[in-house]
């Protein structure tokens, strides 16, 4: 896996255990574990016609990669969407569908 630019704080700058803090702590940042979009085998695809802009998918996405503002069709950030399919399961209008990556 390619490494993202956003590495957790822990993995930079320690060459000796003597310099380490008691525990690893990281400052939350976008994609701190790397580009999780590369984990995907299926991608959620949104049918803007069927979407009623309720935002339920945005609430349930465990990775916070659905961008949603009131009255707009949500957008999915495929760089980090790991393809779990939860958004598809919770959509009340079946406006989301999982599609195999190669297709």
């Amino acid at each position, binding site marked *: 896996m390619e490494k993202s630019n956003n590495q957790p704080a822990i993995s930079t700058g320690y060459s000796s255990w003597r310099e380490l803090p008691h525990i690893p702590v*990281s400052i939350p940042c976008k994609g701190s574990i790397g580009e999780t979009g590369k984990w995907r085998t299926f991608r959620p695809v949104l049918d803007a016609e069927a979407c009623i802009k309720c935002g339920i998918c945005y609430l349930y996405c465990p990775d916070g990669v659905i961008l949603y503002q009131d009255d707009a069709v949500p957008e999915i950030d495929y760089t980090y969407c790991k393809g779990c399919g939860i958004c598809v399961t919770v959509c009340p209008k079946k406006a989301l569908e999982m599609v195999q990556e190669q297709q």
Partner: protein
Amino acid sequence: MKTEQEKEQTIIMSGNYAAAWGAKCSKVKVVSAYPITPQTTVVEKLSEFVDNKELDANYIRVESEHSVMAALVGSSMTGARSFSATSGQGLLYMTEMLHWVSSSRLPIVTTIASRGIAPPWNIWADYTDILSIRDCGWIIQFASTHQEIFDSILMAYKIAENSEINLPYFIVYGGFIQSHTSKPVRIPPQKLIDDFLPQPPKDGWGHINLDPDKPITHGNLVMPEQEYLDFRFLMQDAMIKSKETIKKTINGFNTKFGRNYNGLVEEYCCEDADVVVIAYGALAEQNKIAVDQMRAKGCKAGSLKLRYIRPFPTEELLELFNGKVEVIGVVDRGTAFGNPTGGPISTEVMSLLFRAKRKVKALPCIWGIGGRNVTVDDQVGLYEKLLRIKNKNEYPTDETCQHGTVWMGLKIGV
């Protein structure tokens, strides 16, 4: 006239109440605990203190011991002084979270009223509960008197909250006889206690502070090539370093409060002893009477009480072995099935004989399991066994000695 804050009081109380009083006088901010025999009266007393507003703390009620420790992980991460108490099965149920606490380096203090593990059900003194989680990164201290339970809690927070250490801390005492009998306990003036143990810094422990305004993530995935191994080494390093902090803290406490606690071990008549029994807990305290009786008969007997098993008093034991002692009896009140000796601590103590400069013989023993009574006569009997080894190189061959270990009180018929 002296105010309430400046007065010393002596109160007759149970061992469990001494634990509750220790938490109260340490001004803990969060208590979470689930009642379990024989610990229950600790948390009953604490909830009473909170209810009466004698203790300004949050008492978090939860559905299990696992959740108890999970709740305290959260509270301690905000820098709140946090306390719990448990026993036996409850401690085992907590096990996963115990690692979360130590690996997050949180200075939580918990008292254990040790009891036998079920099945069959047993609620009497037996340290198998604490011994079976001895390697989870908590400091483990035994308290063998009521006063020691109370005093130890004050010292425990001071040691655990030291930023060089930041390890959680267990204070362990025997279920029922110690937890439920009553004795006088001296409660020093609160002012003096506050002076010894000030409140922790407002902005939390140096290494972690949960603050919604400064979000952090903790417990993230750490890859094999990253520093997981190094963080584990840091815990061992802190454990070893804690020995000095423990000794300094005890000395400071003795001076301030007029007590006489020893360091990691407490020796009784060991300087010139040929035979020494090494044990822990209240039975190690009682063992001093057996020493007196042996001494009255002209035998050079000694007793060494392990006050701590984590960190392990390696240097103190080596000093004993490198001195005059010829035979040691090493006693567990707890089991470790399949261990070379059947007891965990006797195996650890005996492993150090290899590092001693001279040959010392050893007899491992297991006593008091499931609250089985151990009398001074029984303890004198153990010294006599050690003397036979010393004088005639005769190890016990009777049926209570199985697989090289004496199981004191094992039923063998007539």
